[in-house]
């Protein structure tokens, strides 16, 4: 029985609602029984019917495996601790971000190279999307929810109201709404929804705030006694995403956390 370990090395960008797209990444992996069940569930959920076949996973090669958040030199473990610094249960809701100026839904075909252009505006999509958006705003800030989301093969702990820096999402313009499907874990005050490997039909809604560049890094190559010196500066493009809400996890089987009295006892 093979394990799912190789999925880490794949990098892709998923903007879309349908869960079929996440499953695309498992294309090259041995399909296990659990996956097939989930796939049938996903297609039943009502994702876009015409969407990608199993073979249209887009891999955009990027060298880094670990995220660099701003402030750039505070590393992931430090940085994610700023997100969940005080215990999860005492998160102060941040003031709601100003509503995006234009609700531009990126066409589904942005991330897929060989998807036919017809899919750009299928009719059922706007309705579905608006419903989800409505749910998202209802569920967002003020709740003690966190999720672990995989973007570009990096995992982030995500809380509504905060922002994260990710690898540059191609084709995403500022004030675009993005739905992240690859939710590996959702945690609330008393429950944890642990995805195997993904929490089905869970989605993290986010808004693209800014497409910028990381701080400059000087790549200095030097060989001694051989008169070889190369001074190269590099700025890695990144995208800042503000998380607006986490939805769709309620139906997933949850693990209840022990009651505080029981824990103390």
């Amino acid at each position, binding site marked *: 029985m093979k394990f799912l370990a190789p999925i880490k090395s794949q990098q892709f960008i998923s903007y879309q609602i349908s869960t079929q797209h996440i499953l695309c990444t498992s294309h090259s992996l041995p399909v296990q029984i659990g996956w097939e069940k989930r796939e049938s569930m996903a297609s039943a959920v009502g994702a876009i019917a015409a969407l990608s076949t199993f073979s249209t996973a887009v891999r955009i090669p990027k060298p880094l*495996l670990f995220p660099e958040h701003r402030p750039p030199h505070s590393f992931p*473990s430090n940085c994610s601790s700023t997100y969940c610094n005080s215990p999860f249960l005492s998160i102060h809701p941040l003031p709601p971000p100003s509503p995006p100026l234009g609700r531009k839904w990126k066409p589904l075909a942005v991330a897929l190279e060989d998807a036919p252009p017809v899919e750009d505006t299928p009719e059922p999509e706007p309705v579905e999307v608006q419903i989800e958006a409505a749910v998202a705003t209802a569920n967002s800030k003020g709740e003690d929810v966190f999720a672990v989301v*995989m973007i570009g093969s990096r995992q982030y702990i995500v809380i509504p109201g905060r922002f994260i820096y990710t690898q540059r999402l191609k084709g995403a313009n500022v004030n675009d709404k993005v739905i992240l499907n690859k939710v590996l874990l959702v945690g609330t005050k008393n429950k944890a929804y642990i995805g195997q490997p993904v929490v089905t039909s869970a989605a993290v809604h986010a808004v693209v705030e800014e497409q910028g560049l990381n701080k400059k890094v000087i790549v200095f190559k030097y060989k001694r006694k051989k008169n070889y010196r190369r001074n190269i500066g590099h700025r890695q493009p990144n995208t800042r995403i503000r998380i607006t809400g986490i939805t769709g996890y309620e139906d997933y089987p949850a693990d209840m956390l022990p009651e505080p009295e029981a824990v103390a006892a």
Partner: protein
Amino acid sequence: MTRVKRGYTARRRRKKIRLFASTFIGAHSRLTRATTQQRMRALVSSHLDRSRKKIYFRRLWITRINAVTREERVFYSYSKLIHNLYKRQLLLNRKILAQIALSNKNCFDMILNKIINKKIK
């Protein structure tokens, strides 16, 4: 060719280098030859350490996860945890696991139970 004096060109170049090495100890921040050399060494180190940083942090996460899994469970360890993690088809990586173990111990216990308990069945 007309006569060209060297003027301030060298000084301007060295000023930048000196600024870079301004916090170095002793002669390494004061004497130009030493500062240029030390700046080169510093940049090379930073380049190499960027790759090493990823290694160090992964080691740290593994150590933390190991410590937490061994806390209350006899005969359980990091290696078994990771083995079962893949068996149960969880995709959480070490960074997230370590962070959850730090901040949200209950959640981490739930993940552990999920991984271990099914094995018994």
